[in-house]
């Protein structure tokens, strides 16, 4: 097996590998065998994941297998629909075929959330610099992805927009950089500070409103093998017109919220407990409230400056 960038593979090779279910995407700690015959999904993949590493060879050892396909033969041709099939049953409404990219991304999330058995997964974005990592916990409408994308522009490296992947042995956070999922108003916000060319086309009419993806950066992929030690945990709260505010949180409260956000904490069991407790020993946690991205950046920068390197 050898590694090549996706963009180095001829389009017909990508098409063939995808149709055979042998496009082995190697991202961070996971290898995913991708399979699809959908041209829209293929186009999205070759664009957004162009710098990603692909394992090339007859067969690879993979962590996940994901097929993005029509739910049945009829729906392959009539009022075309598409579903993500991660190899196990998971209730999901088929989407119109134009939302194939969303299916792909949701399917990849599903694989990590429910099929990772070596790392504890928490629902959070993670960025880092040489000091360590910032975990941005997910709250509905909290602005996790917007803040994550904004911090990328401030020189932080992206580990993951969706998952804090905690190595059970080391308690370090592992990188799994993927395109950052942006919803509704945050799409335009990120277009402004990251540049329009860094954001994908907008998918409209999804179950979550409009969705677009902030493009993966080559630098984040090149450093994806570097773990990060968590130093700061943020629980963002976006409120329109709200004055910026910071409140220190009890670490025990942070632990409770993180555990509640984990899809596999109970499956991993004691190693997850140890890893989480060890990670939390060295961090501070804050709830930040803000009304716009500038305020959130200001708050995070202030908190980060106070963190010991």
């Amino acid at each position, binding site marked *: 097996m050898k590694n090549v960038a996706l963009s180095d593979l001829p389009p017909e090779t990508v098409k063939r590998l995808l149709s055979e279910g042998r496009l082995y995407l190697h991202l961070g700690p996971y290898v995913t065998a991708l399979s699809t015959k959908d041209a829209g999904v293929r186009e999205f993949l070759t664009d957004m994941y162009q710098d990603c590493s692909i394992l090339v060879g007859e067969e690879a050892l*993979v962590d996940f297998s994901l097929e993005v396909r029509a739910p049945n033969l009829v729906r392959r041709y009539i009022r075309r629909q598409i579903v993500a099939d991660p190899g196990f049953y998971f209730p999901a409404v088929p989407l119109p075929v134009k939302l194939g990219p969303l299916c792909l991304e949701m399917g990849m999330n599903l694989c990590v959330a429910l099929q990772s058995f070596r790392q504890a997964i928490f629902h959070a974005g993670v960025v880092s610099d040489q000091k360590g990592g910032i975990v941005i916990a997910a709250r509905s409408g909290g602005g996790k992805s917007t803040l994550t994308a904004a911090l990328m522009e401030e020189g932080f490296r992206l580990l993951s927009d969706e998952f804090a992947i905690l190595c059970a042995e080391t308690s370090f956070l592992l990188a799994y950089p993927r395109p950052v999922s942006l919803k509704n108003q945050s799409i335009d916000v990120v277009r402004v500070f990251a540049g329009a060319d860094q954001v994908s086309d907008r998918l409209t009419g999804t179950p979550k409103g409009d969705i677009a993806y902030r493009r993966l950066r080559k630098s984040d992929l090149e450093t994806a093998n570097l773990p990060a030690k968590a130093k700061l945990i943020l629980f963002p709260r976006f409120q329109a017109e709200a004055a910026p505010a910071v409140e220190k949180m009890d670490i025990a409260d942070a632990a409770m919220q993180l555990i509640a956000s984990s899809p*596999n*904490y*109970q499956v991993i*069991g004691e190693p997850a407990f140890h890893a989480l407790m060890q990670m939390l020993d060295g961090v501070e946690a804050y709830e930040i409230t803000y009304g716009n991205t500038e305020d959130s950046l200001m708050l995070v920068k202030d908190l980060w400056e106070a963190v010991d390197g």
Partner: protein
Amino acid sequence: MVVAKLQEKDKGFLERRRHLLRLGAAGVPMVLTLKASATEPVHSALDCAFVIPSATNILVDVDGKAWIGDGDIQEKNSGELKTSDVTSFKQNAEFVFPSGSAPDQFRPDECSTGDDDDYWGNDCGWGNDYDEPTGDNDDQGSCQADPDRNTPWFEEEGEDGEPGNRGNSYSGSGNDYQHGGKGKGKGKGDDDDGGSAWTDCYKFYQISSNTTISPADYLSGNGSWNLSGANGLYLALAGKYLDTYGNDGGFPGISCLLSILNYLEYQ
């Protein structure tokens, strides 16, 4: 658990405990149990399946030693296998499992044509090790012992081979077409074709490419395993692999199987 003494505490500490006692008297629980969003994932884990991407073949000898590879072996209608193909398959196998790995029902019934291990080498039990140029003629000495098991519930004999070895009641014919794949071969063959060109000391199982295996299909309602067919054999060997090496990649489907074993562990 390290139990720390709490006797030497400051006044604030005692006051906080008093406050909690007052809350207790008011009916506030003193223990909180975290409800991680685990139930659904656990069940989804149980539902997991994995795909064997390319054709995978398994050779089993009378002692339950098993080889997994992609080579083919010619087989007579009587179930006897061509010895040269067997040799080649064993030499090119991707995974080799020690004696006792394949459960009884997957092994040949008997070995009337004799095992030519002294000729083929590399088997524990008979003959010199082909791969050991300094061969010492000490059959067992040249045979690497089974690695230690970390899992205390592993039983070395009898129930060996089923995934995780905790259900302990599996059954099956070794040839279950419903579960995909096919079991070839039978124990007793004739020697009409003469010499050692053909052998009945092995059974050969084939799993075709893109076969999906859902381990939960082999699990009964009470958590015991019913392993049958080539796919069942694959699961049995995957369980062996897991016991020996843990979830250390390398063996397709191992994470899926582990999720189910974890699930059973928590029941």
